[in-house]
């Protein structure tokens, strides 16, 4: 089972497509999830997800708007996708039949 924040990060990576990286993930969560998160929290979670083997990463080219620094990109691995589906399904099952406000469709 994934932690709640891990789920949010994995979902944000999915929404970001191939261009997912730290700041973009943070932005996805803030814009679509409506929740303020710190970049630091995103980074530590990404590191944990990578350790668990749920995401894979590669390093891009340095760019000027980043002050000549490189970007680290993230993509879900198959195992990550499975974990995410599993977690959400568990949630869905647990909420089925509860009052409308609690149900996860």
């Amino acid at each position, binding site marked *: 089972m994934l932690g709640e924040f891990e789920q949010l990060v994995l979902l944000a990576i999915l929404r970001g497509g191939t261009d997912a990286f730290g*700041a973009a993930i943070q932005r996805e969560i803030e814009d679509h999830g409506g929740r303020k998160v710190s970049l*630091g929290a995103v*980074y*530590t979670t990404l590191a944990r997800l990578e350790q668990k083997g749920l995401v894979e990463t590669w390093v891009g080219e340095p760019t000027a708007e980043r002050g000549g620094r490189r970007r680290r990109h993230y993509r879900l691995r198959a195992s990550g996708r499975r974990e995410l589906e599993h977690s959400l399904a568990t949630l869905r099952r647990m909420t089925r039949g509860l009052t409308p406000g609690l149900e996860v469709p």
Partner: protein
Amino acid sequence: MRPSAPPRLAVRLLHWRLPPEHREFFLGDMEERFYQIASEQGDPRAARRWYWRQTLLALLTRWDRRSDWRPVPPRQEGDELLTAFFSDLRAGLRQVRRMPLFAGLVILTFALGIGSSSAIFSVLHPILLQQPPYPEPGRLALVFEREKDGAESYIGYLTFLDLARESRSFSSAAAMSLWQPILDGDEPEVLAGQRVTSGFFSTLGVRPALGRDFSALEDHAGAARVVILSHGLWQRRFGADPGILGRTISFGGTGYQVIGVLPPGFESLLSPAAQLWSPLRYETGDSWACRTCRHLRMIARLRPGVSSVQANDELQRISAAIVAEHPADYSAPGIILTSLHDYLTRKSRPLFLAVTGAVALLLLLACTNGANLFLGRAVDRAQEFAIRAALGAGRGSLIRQLTAEALVLALVGGGLGVLVALGGVELLARLAPANLPRLGQVRVNGAVLGFTLAISGLVGFTAGLVPALAVGRANLAGLIRQGGRQVIRGGGSGLRRGLVAGGVALALMLLTGAGLLMRSLDRLLAVDPGFDPRNLLTMELQATGNDDAAVRRYYAGVLDAVGAVPGVSRVALANQLLLSGDFDAWGVHFEARPAPNPADDPSAFRFAVTPGFLSTMGIPLLSGRDLTEQDREAAPHVALINQSFARRVLGGLDPLGQRVRLGGPDAPWVTIVGVVGDVRHQGLDAEGEAQVYLPSSQTPWAYSRMILLVRGTGRAATLLPAVRGAIHPLDPGVPISRVAMMADLVKATTAQRRFALVVFEFFAVVALLLAGAGLYGVIAASVSERTREIGIRNALGASAGGILALVLRQGIGLTLTGVGFGLGGALALTRLLTSMLYGVSPTDPITFLLVGALLMGIALLACWLPALRALRVDPLEALREG
């Protein structure tokens, strides 16, 4: 347009805190988002705010947390401590969020204390603590002659040459005097400068950024005139022209070739307004180079390895030999050697001593109040501590946690304090007396931030440790059983009362200081300066004429022209301006009271004035006659003398008709024809100075620099344009400078005291607030602890007055204890203020009484509110709760 880059400090902090594997990507992300936010919101400030927020969060992020399914790698001891520290800080932050009101109060207390001391520190730092900005500044020293009475005096050129030649202790030495050339042009301007011997800049260790230093050959009467400019003057008047070297500039009709421009960072500490330098060009035979012509300041650089004690010993020996050779020229042998740093700071030292004392008191008070608040908080949280202890938290970890909480609040308070300091520095720099050295260097810089951080840590640590130790000492095991409160109260409340009483004592000490300074300033401003400063416009003129006759003609024209301006009632000229730092003192030889050695003659301020001077200034003529137009150059030479000088030297002799000589033995005798009232020239607190007034027509040479004094029938300030208009056509090349109202000049002489007063007043108000808040806190806590007791008393029919008295008695007891200790402390500490006081003794009973009363009033107010609450305690409710 590209917005400003991410805040550098934040980037630095991140760089330090981020683990290396994340560093590059994290910083890159931050920068990318920073520019995005700036362009999306069109507001670089929003981006900066975002950057700082993320930085702070990242600083608190636990970067080392590993997922639990992996073995934890072994860590270093130091690393663990750091982790524990950060975890305590995080816990502290959580606590702060849980109790915003309490936290706000503590943070405010700390911000005021830390902020105002940081502001003071930023003023003190460049002036008092930093060495002068020259290479190896510790080896620079000023050299003065010592007079018979131990006073230091400037030195004559021949003495300077002897010392510089004979001394083995100096690697170089230089002499300097003031120079006020007029820069010719469409807008003639009087510039401040120095005339210096050729070794001046090399002694300081400064080299021109452009061009070259003076050569020894240029320091002679016949040599071509050359000048070195400050960077500021070069930019302001010459458009930073790189081709300035070799150009000739005209000063008062004389050409000077520019040979150098100083570097932009050069600070002229020995003559703060100086913008240009030219060689002194004295020859040993010049009449103004004589041994008694003591008008030069000497600076020297000690040879490496020579201590100031060695140098001093050697100089005394040389001086003794010089005096043995020329006994008539010196009152006594002796040289005074003062390090440059001491020389620059000594005038401001009493001020800084006082202000630093005030800062220390306020900081101590902030600590006391913080500790007090924490202690109160700890009592409320006793239950929490008991549970933590039951769950296995050791005494050490509880102490650590409490201290960390205090530290968090102190750091936040320190952060706010920086804002207080930023505002305070601006205020202080504006209020500071203009003669403080290096005022331009006063700003909140790295050193100040370091100081703020250090005292934040210190204050937080102190304020947290005291209550933490009290909690640590409490019997934690017993806490749960007893419901918490009692155990800590036993140890805590005595301490709390002590802290509150201490706060009251500190506040009293600050208030006393403020009160004494306030009364001194009142006394000082009430002093009669001996003349009437109201509606008196003053300005300095510098005539351009080549000979004495032309200069005198010019000034006669000025008097006529200005006298004809409507609204001008009187006008006069003088060679020096009262109460404005002018210093022209001459030895006075009384025919009736000759001193065996001319060097022992008393010295007096010598004013060369025009006949209308007394009536223009409003100085009373006590006996004899005023100077008149008949006192021409060819007429018998006459003088006026002030009353206390005449009485001091002549005793019972009638001064009228006595003859005196000003200057050396070849000066003419002049007859005293009038006695006038004393005026205060060096400061409002300068009593019994000696003054002699001569008709400016009878001085050996005409002064080209004169002060014009204009008394108006109404507000003299409005006369300025008309007066200027009257002077200008007489000679458009004459610059007008130092325009001021005499009343403002009088006020400016009190600037240093005023500055100290403002600091003390501000600190005293803060201290009153803090002390009041501390009292309120303790009494309120005590009322809420005794709710049940008060309820029972109510139920048993205690009168309202009785209950009120019960509560007030406690507050008043605390206050009286504090006042008692405070009076003792104030008696001991106000002595430090003595040199800042005037007309008030440091133990002035009225001040002490008033201050004590004020404090009692505030204390009553602070106890009144909790007392009212005690009155409203409902007996039933109180009993049920218990």
